[in-house]
């Protein structure tokens, strides 16, 4: 494998990691707000708080890691995307900033407030919507380059069916992934009321999630036929994705194997995400930028890969410890262990 491929694989894997952990977090924020409005908050509040409090910071780091990594491996992306994305990127920063800090203010500041929980819920849906802009414009046709000046075509972006399709896909996926994880977490906590409610949410959002996936797949044909053709050649990956979705939903519906169901949901998104990524190859931005343009030098690539491996050796045991204490420790999950600051 060339350095370029190693680099993009590592980064894509991290972006996938972000997709999963952030979706759980974003969706949890929305469900928390929604149930508060409908006075059902007491049912799922504990489950959500118990899981989120120790892990929320970790989520943000996945994103930062991806951004720093892509600049390290593919410095030209900083130039193209950096210039084009000033406004959508800033909007994402603001939403992330509001979400992160108000979560901490509410949780540690020890005061429940409707306003905080509204911010937390609303940003949970708006952040994925704003971040998907990057994937949308990567398909090409949304950016114009005059004499080296990169410009985002806002009319094109807001007027295109594909771009809205991706936004809706992102939002419904967030809700589906989150609900299926929280269903599993509630079942581990043996919290029947929370389980019933969250299971219902998982089932409600399963259908829109898969439908939007298929809709976007076909919308891409109009937007970028070349990419669409490559995707069709990888049909088996999307096939696995669909199959995983079907089994996962079946399990949740039949009220059994919630753990396996969530793993299947992860596989569903893994195959779809990588299928999308591999068929996008080698373009980072159609048609201007491929992974072979302006790749960083070999010394830097080697150094980054070594640093990456060393970093993983440090992180994997730490993440394991975190999960052991808060995700797999039955007493903690069930609320038998204190969670006092």
């Amino acid at each position, binding site marked *: 494998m060339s350095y370029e491929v190693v680099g993009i694989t590592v980064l894509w894997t991290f972006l996938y990691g972000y997709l999963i952990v952030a979706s759980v977090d974003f969706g949890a924020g929305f469900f928390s707000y929604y149930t508060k409005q409908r006075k059902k908050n007491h049912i799922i509040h504990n489950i959500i708080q118990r899981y989120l409090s120790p892990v929320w*910071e970790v989520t943000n780091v996945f994103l930062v890691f991806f951004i720093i990594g892509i600049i*390290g491996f593919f410095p030209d992306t900083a130039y*193209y995307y950096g210039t084009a994305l000033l406004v959508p990127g800033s909007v994402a920063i603001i939403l992330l900033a509001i979400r992160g800090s108000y979560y901490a203010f509410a949780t540690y500041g*020890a005061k429940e407030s409707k306003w905080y929980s509204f911010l937390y819920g609303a940003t949970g849906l708006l952040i994925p919507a704003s971040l998907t802009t990057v994937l949308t414009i990567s398909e090409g046709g949304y950016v114009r380059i005059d004499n080296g000046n*990169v410009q985002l075509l806002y009319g094109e972006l807001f007027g295109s069916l594909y771009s809205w399709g991706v936004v809706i896909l992102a939002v419904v996926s967030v809700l589906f992934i989150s609900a299926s994880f929280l269903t599993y977490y509630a079942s581990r906590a043996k919290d029947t009321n929370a389980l019933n409610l969250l299971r219902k949410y998982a089932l409600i959002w399963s259908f829109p999630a898969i439908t939007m996936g298929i809709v976007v797949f076909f919308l891409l044909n109009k937007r970028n036929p070349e990419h669409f053709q490559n995707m069709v050649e990888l049909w088996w990956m999307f096939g696995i994705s669909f199959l995983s979705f079907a089994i996962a939903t079946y399990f949740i519906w039949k009220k059994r194997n919630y753990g396996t169901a969530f793993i299947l949901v992860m596989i569903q998104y893994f195959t779809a995400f990588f299928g999308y990524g591999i068929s996008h190859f080698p373009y980072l931005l159609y048609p201007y930028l491929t992974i072979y343009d302006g790749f960083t030098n070999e010394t*830097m690539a080697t150094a980054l890969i070594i640093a990456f491996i060393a970093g993983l050796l440090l*992180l994997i045991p730490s993440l394991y410890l975190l999960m052991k204490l808060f995700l797999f420790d039955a007493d903690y999950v069930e609320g038998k262990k204190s969670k006092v600051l």
Partner: protein
Amino acid sequence: MFEYDPVLYSRILTTLTLAFHVIFATLGVGIPLMIAIAEWMGIKRNDPHYTLMARRWARGFIVTVAVGVVTGTAIVLQLSLLWPNFMRAAGHTIGLPMFMETFAFFFEAIFLGIYLYTWDRFKSKMKHFLLVIPIVIGATASAFFITTVNSFMNAPQGFEIVDGVLTNVSPLAAMFNPATPTKISHVIITCYLTAAFILGAIAALNILKGKNHVYHKKALHLTMVTGAIFAIGTAVIGDLSGKYLHEYQPEKLAAAEWHFETESEAPLILGGILTEDNEVRFALEIPYALSILAGGSTDTVVTGLNDFPADELPPLWIHYMFDLMVFIGMYLALVSMIFVFFNWKKNWNAFSRPLLWAVFAGGPLSMLAIQSGWFFAEVGRQPWILNGIMTVSEAATTSQHVDIMLLVFIILYTVLGITCVVVLRRMFKNNSVEHELEERGIVHHSKQEAN
């Protein structure tokens, strides 16, 4: 009225984000060490007051970390959005430490999550203490890696430019450039110093308000002893930084010191104003001091501003930033040493009101010194973003709308800053030390020591 200039707006917006972030970043690097020291003291002396101190500091810390994390994320994104050309060059040359910084922070974030929620989970107190070590290491390592990037901006090396293309890159040489040793040690130790003084200021304020529990005295003593050590360390490193500047960035040193004529036996100028024909008025001159700062002896020749091309000089107001930073540094060293000395002399009163006020003032002043230090470092590098290689105007975005973004971010940081203060105040007001001590049934030694 103003013509839209993306370079100017990008500079203002970056200044704003960095100045806001650095408050939280400084605390983020410094406070974990203070927490670790307090928890350690609690175990070694078997004194629950120190343990509670660590616990309360950690609780306040997490709120500042949250703002630090989100503004840190903002910087990463904003650097790419506002300085795309710089980030492209940086990706080729100094990407490695940036990449490692995220790992360091990742590591810290994981253990912070664990640390906060496991106070009563282990039988052995030592086990919980061990969890704070990775937080201290992660926080300091983050500062280390990110400061190497800033050092690189001051003394870029480890690459060649052939026909405008960056080649022959050596990531380690770029990381360990001549500015690195003094810069990282200066940044890290001043983070510790500032954290000690911020926490010390809180303790001093509590005592000034008439709270006479021994807990506050212990907190004040702990922060002032550590503060004194870090302040002395800061002074030594500050001296070495002067020698670095003399050798590698003489124009920055000359601008900081309003030093126009190249000469030996150069005096150090404190304060003063500059007339239109560049004459220094009303300043305090310390003979020979600049030569000594620059080279360790009075006969060191210090290059003056007149010997540099005028369009490559930073603005001369950085002199005040430099003076402010140095003055506050000395003030902090003096106050903390006086406190420690008074406290050591058994029958002298270290808790007199004037001294407590002086300690309290040290809190905000130390943060002001951090700000002025960074303003000096960054503005002092102008017009360069990469010293001698790329100017800020070459690096900036050409994009529209930076002005609107500036406005939006001003609002964002104002709201975040205010809420952060409100939340912190409420957290500690609703749950005072005295109340918490009672609630947890801690009565340790308080009677013997309180008098």
